[in-house]
């Protein structure tokens, strides 16, 4: 176990609790307080796949240096859950600090001598102060926040301000009661404990221009800005909050204040097959329509994805990935739907993928996804994950360019159809493999028949082998040309010339950046390519060509991006070294360094 580094503005605190007890607001308050003090911070929630009564952890990393990903260490453990006390004690990094509820005596055998142990009689304090059992439980969380505030040197003015904002005028009575509970913990700590700890927060100025946001919220918002009007979904963790966010923002921005009329329509479908079918129909009807789901949903949607790509109907699908296969670990993260998504459905298929790395890109890629889907007339699958989607990330404040106009691609509108001599839905007029489409209801000349069976340029039924081969080759050509319509990879070069590279994507990005800095410090230099879309463009091929040895960092067992690289590009398998992490926890730089030190022997040999 790594030695705790803990110190000013550089530590990780983990709070162990029971779900359904309302600890989320206390945890959020702590994170936001740090953020408001100008210190970079992020928060990750580890929760069980049930509703009430099982262990849950919240982890906050404070990092002046801006390493806002899992740290792989715990400097302060707040052990509020007796059920997991042993485990929590064991996971505290050496030199760290354990805070526990000393209302009841704890078995000394369960102590360690390489850590600092701080007991606070929280339950007793709350039981003395409050009569109602539910209030006791809720206030215990607020009280431990007070203790932490004192120990960590949190600015109480910031806290007060946050509490005011949280409850506002309408719930004013709660402001006082919460502040009182905080003060109870705070005062106790000041009186009985050595405050602050060495591991603490000092005000700084590194969060200006930033916000704290989770990826599902950002994606929901991004879809509002992208002009999506129809959302269809079936609830599934961890994607549910994405459509919830879309709905909330629509209620805010898309209801006519006078008439109450809604500029959007959200359909809770009967299942994922239905949700995908609604997305197909909505886009075919001309409205930007999307869905959000997770792995099992992608499996169920695959027939529709195959249909949409073969009939060239745009679709946007957000896959907030969780740990698979099957039901897997529904409340844990992973990047393991790449192959299912890229080649979804029987027959020769290939779909466009986007890989946002954080909530900022979730916001941006909502528009990119629709633009690409409509430009290419094909499904675009955005592969987010639970870590991005449901955790709190510090990101640069999202900006919007008011000159943005959606790229609806090649659409024959009323005027174009009126002027056209004829309209052939699947004719490759421009030689780029992308035909022209039309929406229903616009013009008699625009009418055509969409079918998943064989069809010719005029959208007529055909079983002719020649027609079929022509269609399939055009579709391949079209997708070969996709990269120019998709977000380009981001390359970060080392300060020293090097033959070594790292390829990663999505939520691994920040951990890779931290790992790269560490490697750099030890004299190992890596150029870093972050993939943002599939199919890959020439820039990816060039990166492969330019390096001797490339670690492919992924959060899955089988190196799925590596498979896509091998299949789609031209690269010697030996030089692509899998660096894998797949236990469902957000990836840390330590995970990456460990994986690089021991590349999977089987894979490396193969």
């Amino acid at each position, binding site marked *: 176990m790594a030695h705790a580094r803990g110190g000013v503005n550089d530590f990780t605190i983990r709070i162990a609790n029971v779900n359904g007890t309302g600890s989320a607001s206390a945890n959020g308050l702590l994170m936001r307080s740090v953020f408001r003090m100008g210190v970079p911070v992020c928060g990750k929630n580890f929760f069980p796949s049930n509703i009430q009564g099982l262990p849950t952890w919240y982890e906050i990393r404070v990092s002046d240096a801006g390493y806002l990903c899992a740290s792989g260490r715990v400097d302060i453990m707040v052990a509020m859950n007796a059920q997991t006390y042993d485990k929590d004690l064991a996971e505290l990094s050496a030199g760290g600090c354990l805070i526990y509820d000393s209302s009841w005596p704890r078995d000394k055998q369960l102590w360690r001598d390489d850590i600092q142990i701080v007991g606070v009689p929280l339950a007793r304090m709350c039981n003395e102060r409050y009569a109602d059992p539910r209030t006791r439980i809720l206030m215990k969380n607020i009280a431990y926040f007070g203790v932490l505030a004192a120990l960590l040197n949190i600015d109480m003015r910031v806290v007060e301000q946050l509490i005011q904002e949280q409850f506002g005028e309408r719930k004013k009575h709660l402001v006082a009661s919460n502040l009182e509970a905080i003060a109870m913990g705070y005062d106790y700590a000041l009186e009985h404990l050595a405050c602050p700890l060495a591991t603490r927060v000092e005000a700084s100025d590194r*969060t200006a221009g930033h916000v704290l946001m989770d990826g599902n919220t950002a994606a929901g918002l991004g879809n509002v800005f992208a002009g999506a009007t129809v959302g269809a979904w079936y609830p599934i963790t961890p994607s549910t909050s994405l459509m919830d966010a879309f709905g909330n923002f629509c209620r805010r921005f898309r209801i006519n204040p006078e008439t109450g009329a809604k500029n*959007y*329509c959200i359909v809770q479908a009967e299942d994922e097959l239905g949700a995908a079918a609604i997305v197909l129909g909505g886009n075919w009807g001309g409205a930007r329509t999307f869905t959000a789901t997770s792995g099992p949903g992608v499996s169920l949607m695959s027939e529709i994805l195959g249909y949409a790509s073969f009939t060239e109907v745009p679709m946007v699908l957000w896959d907030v990935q969780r740990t698979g296969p099957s039901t897997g670990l529904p409340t844990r993260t992973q990047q393991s739907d790449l192959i299912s998504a890229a080649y979804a459905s029987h027959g020769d298929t290939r779909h466009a993928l986007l890989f946002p790395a954080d909530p900022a890109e979730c916001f941006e890629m909502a528009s990119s996804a629709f633009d690409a889907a409509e430009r290419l007339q094909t499904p675009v699958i955005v592969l987010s994950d639970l870590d991005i989607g449901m955790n709190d990330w510090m990101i640069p404040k999202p900006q919007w360019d008011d000159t943005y106009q959606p790229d609806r691609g090649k659409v024959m509108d009323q005027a174009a159809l009126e002027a056209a001599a004829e309209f052939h839905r699947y004719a490759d007029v421009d030689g780029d493999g992308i035909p022209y489409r039309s929406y*229903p209801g616009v013009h008699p000349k625009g009418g055509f028949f969409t079918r998943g069976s064989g069809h010719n340029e005029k959208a007529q039924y055909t079983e002719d082998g020649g027609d079929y081969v022509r269609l399939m080759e055009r579709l391949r050509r079209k997708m070969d040309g996709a990269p120019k319509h998709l977000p380009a990879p981001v390359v970060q070069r080392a300060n020293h010339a090097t033959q070594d590279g790292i390829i990663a994507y999505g939520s691994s990005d920040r951990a890779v950046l931290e790992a790269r800095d560490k490697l750099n410090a030890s004299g190992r230099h890596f150029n870093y390519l972050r993939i943002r879309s599939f199919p890959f463009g020439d820039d990816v091929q060039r990166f492969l060509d330019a390096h001797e040895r490339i670690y492919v960092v992924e959060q899955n067992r089988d190196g799925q991006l590596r498979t896509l690289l091998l299949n789609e590009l031209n690269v010697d398998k030996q030089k692509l070294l899998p660096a894998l992490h797949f236990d469902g926890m957000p990836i840390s730089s330590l995970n990456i360094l460990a994986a690089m030190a021991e590349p999977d022997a089987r894979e490396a040999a193969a």
Partner: protein
Amino acid sequence: MSFITKPHVVRVEMPTNALGLTMRDYEGGMSTLCAGCGHDSVSSAIAQTFFELSIPPHRAAKMSGIGCSSKTPAYFLRTSHGMNAVHGRMPAVATGVAAANRELHVLGVSGDGDSLSIGLAHFVHAMRRNLNMVYILENNGVYGLTKGQFSASADIGSTAKGGAPNLQQPLDPLQMALSAGGTFVARSFSGDKHQLIPLIKAGLEHRGFALIDVISPCVTFNDHVGSTKSYAHTRDASRELFPTDFVPPAEAIEVELAPEGTTPVKLHDGSQILLRQTDSGYDPTDRGAAFQAIVEHQARGEILTGLVYIDRDADDMHASNETCPKPLVDVPFAELCPGSDALERLMAGFA
């Protein structure tokens, strides 16, 4: 029978409708179904309905799944957008289309295989949503396109071509609809255009999900003696609840006083359905009674046809959602995107 008076044409010119279009304009590609297939009659009834109602063909969206029945949208309304979706998912695809554009006349054509097995959940949930569409279920008791396996609507004891009887409980689309909150529940027969066309018209004017179960015999796999979905059996066993006439809005004003012996049912656009009363005292707005009536006929080996149940008051999907009156597809981007200032204000809450 339709109340729309057909122009008396003396010369060989084709009659035109209010849009100046002829029946030709409502036809489609050559059918590739078997000669005599019931589905072809339904196609021509649909074409005639749209012609008579003077609906511009391109304002319709023809939706279907997979099956012989689902092929038929290629055989009428040539200039409409149409879609053969994947097997069973059409009701959900249609939901998306209707969500995108509430002004389209969404017409679904499906089969008993497509709707009652693989697509059952979608079919039922489209009814729950009261999606504004006409849904024609061409019911022949078999999977025609895959060569005649029993479908879920096959009656117990009805025999396959080879002689083996079906042993499983049948699913009756009407009973399904009544238990799923369907708001327009009707049955007809491909061989009876006089009944079918007014029902489709009424379905098109109904603001909500109009289910028309059309017994449409499969001449190749299910038209033999012993089958309860054959032409002969359907003709013999059909019992029309009461003859239904459709009165378009303009004329409806004139017939404000319904002819004696008929009950007028007003639809949303002002048109009416006239139900000729029988002495049964049947009330087509009583869901329980409708189910009773169907089950009783079924027990006697009879097939109840006509408009069995209607609920004109239920909100359709867009009404429940309070969607803006303009089709979502037509709302300009400027009205959809909150813009940079709104974003800036919103972000204050995340700092």
